[in-house]
């Protein structure tokens, strides 16, 4: 039976293998075949294997083997926990998820969520996998994780209810995945928002988003926490340009608080209604100040003030009407409370924040005496673009006490719960990662896939030991690329300096050539010489034209990054050496990306000669995108520096490129060392030999050495002219890019 199955399966396997062989090399294919075997070993069955092959073919175009291996790993686990059918359906859903999330960390999180489902609700994997298209409609991984955990919680162990939820028969489930077509998410609007706020007040804002909670009826408002502005992931029910407008209105309002507001208000013994009113007055005060500077902001905010005199008298409507009255001078409202508030506001000192507290307290008393209902739990600030006001208050060391300040308590609870949740969640994820390498794109062997063996020079005996070091490819750990982007934002001065350097060497620039046989223009000096020659009876030089040619650069660069344990040392500024390396590399990578130079980024660390770990952050044929940044952000310090093996490997990698000029830049923080070598000089000699090897192969190797130590050995390894010492580690980003532009100059 099994044999017959195999006969049937073989051609399909062959076809998949052939397909993949266009994209991957032998070692990668080997690892892939291992993954297939792994699936077969847990009795995944032919349909599951075929599903995996199909998914592999689908994913192969992305040219990355690690996600495919990870897929097999998790599918194996799902198969163990929930059976072959579940695993098959998950694999069939993979292309849908990959379309939504790409190959980045989000896809790994998708796998983790699927695996979680397989463990806790085995019967639900298949229903949810077959509906993946609908389930992923919200488009963010947060939404999917939310969906899974909500389903598990909502069913509270009841299998039938779980199936109903994950088959989308449940009302809550449908609501959670309902996404308005055309809605704009925060990431889509972020770049523009940031530039908008910077242009308004000359101060780049710190923007974050919080996930939209579909269980809540009211749209949560933006909030301010310290210097950070948090905006909803998406404004529900608002689409297209209207959504962008709303994001701008909310962000501009919040940033106005940060730019024009002053210290926090102490909560003291204020009642919730008073707090809400102080917020309202402060909002109006800040907006008035902002509109004095930038009158056009009125147009941005005005459309959201829609409260009108009609309707029942309740606290929320009164507050909304007061908000409008303070904002819009043309608004007519005869209500005594609104009129009083308006009169007080107009008579107040607008520049003084104490005003807000004074008026807010008085009006709060008034409204309290009118005995209107004010429900802290359901109250949301109106209009929708305003922030929730909590960022304006100082709740004191121990937080609020007693029922009088219920509003802040509620709010603080929300905040704390959120913070707690995220911590828990990440804790959980870490735990999962450690427990089973499944969702992490790690190849079968814990130590990584063996990709090469290299000789090493034994200086004591003067012989070369063949196949002495084993280089393993370790899949990169992924982290938030945002981390890199923020570091880049902070270094904007340096970044713009590098930007100017880039423009200076812009490829494709025309240069003029004088004294040519042909060209578009006469070279006046050459013509004169020719004329003089004719007159004096000599043979004139016929090259009397000028022409132009484009500058063309044929260069590939490999940046070899030392991530050994010592790079975890902290500098005076509080950041680690690795942090600085990361920043330097990302600035340079950005520059090289803009220049269109082919480059690759490799990180290395070693744990004895059998285990020299290489992590590819960017390969030569990959674009420098967010996936690369995620890998760069995920680098962590550890182990030792076996430089020779790393250099030889770098030489082999860059040797595969066809560029005329090949450049290897090594970024290291000291001398080579490893646990199994007692004499560090031996490794220096080996590295020197490796560097000479590169030189003979026509590859330029440069050493960039951080800190005080390691200078002498570095100039021994790379020779003096090819070593750059960076004594102050903080200078690295600047110096590294300078070095690059010097080396890569035409």
């Amino acid at each position, binding site marked *: 039976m099994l044999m017959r199955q195999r006969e049937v399966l073989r051609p399909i396997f062959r076809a998949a293998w052939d397909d993949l062989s266009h994209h991957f090399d032998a070692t990668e294919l080997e690892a892939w075949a291992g993954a297939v075997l792994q699936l077969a070993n847990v009795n995944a069955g032919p349909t599951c294997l075929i599903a995996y092959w199909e998914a592999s073919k689908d994913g192969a175009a992305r040219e990355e083997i690690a996600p495919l291996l990870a897929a097999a790993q998790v599918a194996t686990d799902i198969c163990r926990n929930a059976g072959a059918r579940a695993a098959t359906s998950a694999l069939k859903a993979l292309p849908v998820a990959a379309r939504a999330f790409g190959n980045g960390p989000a896809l790994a999180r998708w796998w983790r969520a699927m695996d979680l489902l397989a463990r806790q609700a085995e019967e639900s994997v298949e229903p949810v996998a077959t509906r993946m298209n609908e389930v992923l409609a919200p488009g963010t991984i947060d939404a999917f994780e939310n969906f899974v955990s909500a389903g598990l919680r909502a069913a509270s162990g009841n299998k039938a209810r779980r199936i109903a939820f994950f088959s989308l028969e449940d009302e809550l489930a449908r609501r959670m995945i309902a996404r308005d077509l055309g809605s704009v998410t925060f990431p889509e609007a972020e770049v523009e928002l940031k530039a908008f706020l910077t242009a*308004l007040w000359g101060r780049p804002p710190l923007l974050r988003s919080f996930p939209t909670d579909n269980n809540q009826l009211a749209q949560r408002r933006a909030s301010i926490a310290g210097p950070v502005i948090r905006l909803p992931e998406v404004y529900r029910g608002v689409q297209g340009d209207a959504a962008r407008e709303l994001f701008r209105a909310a962000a501009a309002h919040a940033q106005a608080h940060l730019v024009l507001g002053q210290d926090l208000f102490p909560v003291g013994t204020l009642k919730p209604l008073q707090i809400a009113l102080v917020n309202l007055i402060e909002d109006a005060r800040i907006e008035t100040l902002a509109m004095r500077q930038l009158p056009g902001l009125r147009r941005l905010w005005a459309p959201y003030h829609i409260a009108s005199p009609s309707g029942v008298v309740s606290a929320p409507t009164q507050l909304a009407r007061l908000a409008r009255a303070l904002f819009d001078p043309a608004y007519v409202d005869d209500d005594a409370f609104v009129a009083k508030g308006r009169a007080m506001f107009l008579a107040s000192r607008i520049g003084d924040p104490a005003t807000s507290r004074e008026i807010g307290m008085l009006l709060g008393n008034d409204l309290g005496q009118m005995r209107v209902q004010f429900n802290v739990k359901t109250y949301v600030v109106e209009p929708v673009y305003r922030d929730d006001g909590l960022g304006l208050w100082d709740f004191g060391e121990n937080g609020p006490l007693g029922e009088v300040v219920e509003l802040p308590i509620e709010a603080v609870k929300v905040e704390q719960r959120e913070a707690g949740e995220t911590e828990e969640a990440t804790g959980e994820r870490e735990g999962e990662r450690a427990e089973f390498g499944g969702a992490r794109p790690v190849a079968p062997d814990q130590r990584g896939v063996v990709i090469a063996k290299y000789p090493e020079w034994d200086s004591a005996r003067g012989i070369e030991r063949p196949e002495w070091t084993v280089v393993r490819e370790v899949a990169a750990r992924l982290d938030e690329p945002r981390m890199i982007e923020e570091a880049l934002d902070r270094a904007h001065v340096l970044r713009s300096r590098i930007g100017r350097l880039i423009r200076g060497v812009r490829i494709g620039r025309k240069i003029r050539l004088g004294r040519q046989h042909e060209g578009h223009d006469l070279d006046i000096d050459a013509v004169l010489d020719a004329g003089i020659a004719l007159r004096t009876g000599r043979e004139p030089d016929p090259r009397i034209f000028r022409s132009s040619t484009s500058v063309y650069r044929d260069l590939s660069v490999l940046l070899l990054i030392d991530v050994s344990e010592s790079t975890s040392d902290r500098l005076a500024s509080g950041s680690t050496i690795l942090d600085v390396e990361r920043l330097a590399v990302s600035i340079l990578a950005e520059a090289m990306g803009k220049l269109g130079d082919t480059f690759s980024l490799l990180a290395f660390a070693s744990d004895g000669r059998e285990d020299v770990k290489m992590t590819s952050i960017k390969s030569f044929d990959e674009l420098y995108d967010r996936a690369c940044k995620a890998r760069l952000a995920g680098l962590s310090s550890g182990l030792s520096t076996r430089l020779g093996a790393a250099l030889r490997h770098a030489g082999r990698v860059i040797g595969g490129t066809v560029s005329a000029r090949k450049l290897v830049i090594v970024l290291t923080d000291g001398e080579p060392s490893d646990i199994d070598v007692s004499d560090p000089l031996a490794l220096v000699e080996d590295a020197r030999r490796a560097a000479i090897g590169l030189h003979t192969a026509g590859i330029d190797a440069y050493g960039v050495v951080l800190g005080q130590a390691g200078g002498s050995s570095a100039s021994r390894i790379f020779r003096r002219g090819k070593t750059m010492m960076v004594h102050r580690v903080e200078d690295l980003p600047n110096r590294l890019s300078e070095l690059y532009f010097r080396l890569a100059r035409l």
Partner: protein
Amino acid sequence: MNLDPYRIASEPYYEPLGHEIEAFKAAYAERLPVMLKGPTGCGKTRFVEHMAWLLGKPLITVAAHEDMTAADLAGRYLLEPSGTVWHDGPLALAVRFGAICYLDEIVEARQDTTVVIHPLTDTRRILPLEKRGEIVPAHADFQLTISYNPGYQSAVKDLKESTKQRFVAIDFGYPPPATEAAIVVRESGTDNDLAAVLVAIAQRSRNLQGHGLDEGASTRMLIHAGRMVRAGLPLEAAVQSSIVLPITDNPDIRSALSDAIQACLP
């Protein structure tokens, strides 16, 4: 030779921002070469014209470019029916007959070209004309002024240290808002309110410098916008066509800038 065509007949408008006029006068009195630094469109060229008028000297302006050779500055032999004839370049002309020679955007020229000014900018004050075998001592009225925009050129094309250190420098920036508005009113003929709005708009774009823009809107751009309005274009359209569209091609930055400009409009 008569340099009258190079003389400036009527006073070019210039609004002093600091002590730049005194500084230039002092430098001229001592015949020290001057370097004007500052972003594009902030009035460097206008300042030189103003000073030439104030001092009553002819002004010879050369816009430097990548293909400029030393011969383009100093002069060359030309061929005429009777034989070769030496033709002074603009720099030689200024040196020989006493003018202020203004080399605009000097870093655009190649470094081997700029060294030709070295003997002119130290105590020697001579211009050697190699091809002609002549050394031209500078006329008593001759003075050299160069301009460059440190932000805009690439660091690769920076001035040579040996060139830089020969000059007295005057730094130009964007004028304070009130002054800038006055300049816009004067140069474009708009009213005060509109000028104030234009200056506020420029401020928004300058906030984006280093955060998406390489340089903010210049005073010159504001004047252009003002003139477009005067010619009958609505303010928004004028700002779009004379500030937003020229300054960036990035759609995100463009739309952010447009929105920020909206916030400035009354």
